């Protein structure tokens, strides 16, 4: 009898262990079900955002403002947003969505939208926009395009970004250049860069005027300033004459200053958001940077005498152009509270809230309409330049097709090859096309097979009241 009860106890113990192991989540549900829900019990939303430090603080302030206003859902319960600053957000959102436990609101990069929506990870928002009187026409088309895929809306803008030329006025003066006259063409930029570059007695670079690879974040996008693009909406165009001109230009810097000297000068291992950043130290005189960069400069190098201007085109007659981007607020497909998440996203779209957020992050507003005091009260003295650049019809963003990440990575490899003078631009770009075209064909083929099915799913998901 004793033996029997001992075995029974063991069996019970093991069964309990298995139950706890497999069903932990459900067990916790059993306990939470005992909570008494009243009309004042808040619906708590989980919001994951990619920003850190002061950029995260800016959004946190908006979240606090939303929570303070005690906005309620359709059942009259108050909505509370819990903000989480998350690194490597795209991978974490992906895994959480695949695991069926995504946050209610996801602060994504614009490049994620196409991939995630095509794979069924996000909720379409057209129906919600229509119901609440929001329109695509309220936004700059150059920015709102990032929220779209297959002519559906997958997220709403948080803050946009654009790029321009940052230059060090003090170094301009020291080189005998007029600090109020930044270069207006690529040829002028090259000449100015040479004047601003200094060497020590051993011939090592101690001050660099400009390099297309510094900071090197948008290397594949350089064709934009030569009137080209790498993706024309249907084809890979990295070998178009304009793009080739851009790649030749990049390689000309590697030839002119030599890789050995540029590598010895070295910038890559220096943290970007620190006073060791070579631009902030005054070791690099000019670089392509985003609107947000000024806030970093003010914190890390407050005494830097800075000028900002549109980045020059190869031919000034072509006008100005920039690369645009946008942070996007989306609702993952299996979010627990999609309606309440939409309430928060909608709140951020309110002109006063959006302008508050953009001011806090030193950005321009993605809305077409801006309040009269938006620019006068804006902490970024050059913000209008970025807005005007973003409004340029030639402005472009990250190539918008499903294998853009693979394409971008391959372009980066090709650029590194030509930067190291291992291949000519023509050879490097031929390799990119040879590698990417079959991947694109396969992806298109698969998409053609599942497109209709996906469209039906989206119709179903967007059909709500």
């Amino acid at each position, binding site marked *: 009898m004793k033996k029997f009860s001992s075995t029974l106890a*063991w*069996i019970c113990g093991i069964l309990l262990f298995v139950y706890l192991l497999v069903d932990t989540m459900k067990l916790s549900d059993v306990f939470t079900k005992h909570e008494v829900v009243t009309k004042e019990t808040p619906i708590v939303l989980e919001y994951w955002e990619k920003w850190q430090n002061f950029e995260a603080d800016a959004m946190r302030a908006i979240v606090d403002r939303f929570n303070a206003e005690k906005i309620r859902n359709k059942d009259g319960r108050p909505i509370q947003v819990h903000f989480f600053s998350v690194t490597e957000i795209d991978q974490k959102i992906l895994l959480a969505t695949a695991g069926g436990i995504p946050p209610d609101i996801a602060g994504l990069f614009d490049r994620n939208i196409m991939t995630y929506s095509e*794979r069924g*990870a996000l909720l379409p928002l057209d129906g919600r926009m229509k119901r609440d009187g929001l329109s695509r026409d309220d936004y700059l088309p150059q920015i709102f395009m990032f929220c779209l895929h297959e002519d559906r809306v997958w997220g709403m803008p948080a803050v946009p970004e654009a790029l321009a030329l940052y230059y060090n006025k003090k170094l301009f003066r020291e080189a005998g250049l007029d600090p109020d006259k930044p270069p207006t063409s690529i040829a002028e930029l090259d000449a100015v860069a040479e004047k601003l570059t200094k060497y020590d007695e051993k011939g090592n670079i101690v001050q660099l005027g400009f390099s297309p690879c510094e900071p090197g974040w948008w290397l594949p996008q350089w064709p934009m300033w030569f009137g080209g693009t790498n993706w024309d909406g249907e084809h890979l165009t990295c070998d178009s004459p304009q793009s080739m001109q851009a790649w030749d230009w990049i390689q000309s810097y590697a030839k002119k200053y030599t890789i050995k000297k540029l*590598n010895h000068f070295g910038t890559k291992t220096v943290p970007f958001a620190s006073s060791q950043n070579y631009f902030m130290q005054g070791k690099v005189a000019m670089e392509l940077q985003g609107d947000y960069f000024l806030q970093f400069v003010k914190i890390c190098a407050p005494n830097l005498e800075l000028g900002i201007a549109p980045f020059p085109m190869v031919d000034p007659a072509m006008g100005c152009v920039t690369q645009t981007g946008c942070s996007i607020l989306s609702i993952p497909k299996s979010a627990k509270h999609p309606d309440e998440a939409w309430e928060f996203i909608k709140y951020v779209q309110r002109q006063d809230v959006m302008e508050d957020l953009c001011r806090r992050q030193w950005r321009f507003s993605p809305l077409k309409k801006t309040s009269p005091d938006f620019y006068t009260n804006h902490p970024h003295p050059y913000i209008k330049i970025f807005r005007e650049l973003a409004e340029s019809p030639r402005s472009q963003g990250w190539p918008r097709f499903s294998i853009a990440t693979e394409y971008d*990575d391959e372009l980066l*490899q090709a650029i*590194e090859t030509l930067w190291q003078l291992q291949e000519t631009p023509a050879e490097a770009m031929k390799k990119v096309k040879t*590698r990417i075209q079959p991947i694109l064909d396969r992806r298109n083929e698969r998409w053609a097979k599942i497109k209709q099915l996906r469209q039906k799913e989206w119709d179903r998901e967007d059909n709500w009241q």
Partner: protein
Amino acid sequence: MTKTEKSNIIKGLLFTMPWIIGMCLFTLYPTIMSVYYSFTDYSLLNAPAPVGLQNYKDLFVDEVFLKTLSNTWIYAAMALPFGMIVSLFLAILLNQGIIARPLFRTIFFLPSLVPLVALAILWNWLFRTNDGAINALLEMVGVTGPDWLGSTLWAKPALVITGLWGCGQAVVIYLAGLQEVPRDFYDAARVDGANWYQQIRHITLPLISPVIYFNLIMGCIGTLQIFAVPFIMTNGGPLRSTLFYSMYLFQQAFRYLNMGYACAMAVILFFMIAALTWVAHMISRKHIYYGGA
């Protein structure tokens, strides 16, 4: 089978049940699913669509895959013997009757406790071309240091040197083996006139051969799966010269969402390691001495 034997088996199974369940849930099931996904087009968010052997066919014409394969083998060929020799040498030194032996042992083991991320960042700074400590030391003896992490020639050796930082773990295992070698053997050898090298060659190495074999297998697995340090230090560059197998697998799975393709890579890696372990086992069968066996 007697009643007691039956009861013992049941009890044994009950005791091992938590492990069996854990193994089935967290090792066996994912392994089986990986093999299944390797025959599908799977992006993690959609249902997998069967594609037969397509992923495997694509892999063997994928230039980057072949490059990562060769990078990994070259790295393993450099890091494994170098790491084993250095850690064995250190273990032999630390096994000598020197002053403050426990202190030295602790000092050599400590670096292996440093988190890999911190280690990678630290070495990134040490390897800097213009103001890194390593090149500064070389400069002091009149040698111009190379662009360690920016050159295709030096990036892999730089990672091998970085890997040595964590050899403390292998040193501890070797030390445990060395302490098992009976002193009498050395005394007898000395009486017979054997010098230090002969003692190492004919006594130490044969008697710790199971430990060497263990470290060889573990080192093999470790070097073929290298990920964290190059991921942080070079991110595969320059020109993909440090893009290793696991990094490309990760890239395919989590950057491009090609889970099926990544699973096919994982299956190949599994068989590669299994085959290598088998080969190592076959080769070393004659050369390993198990005292009690």
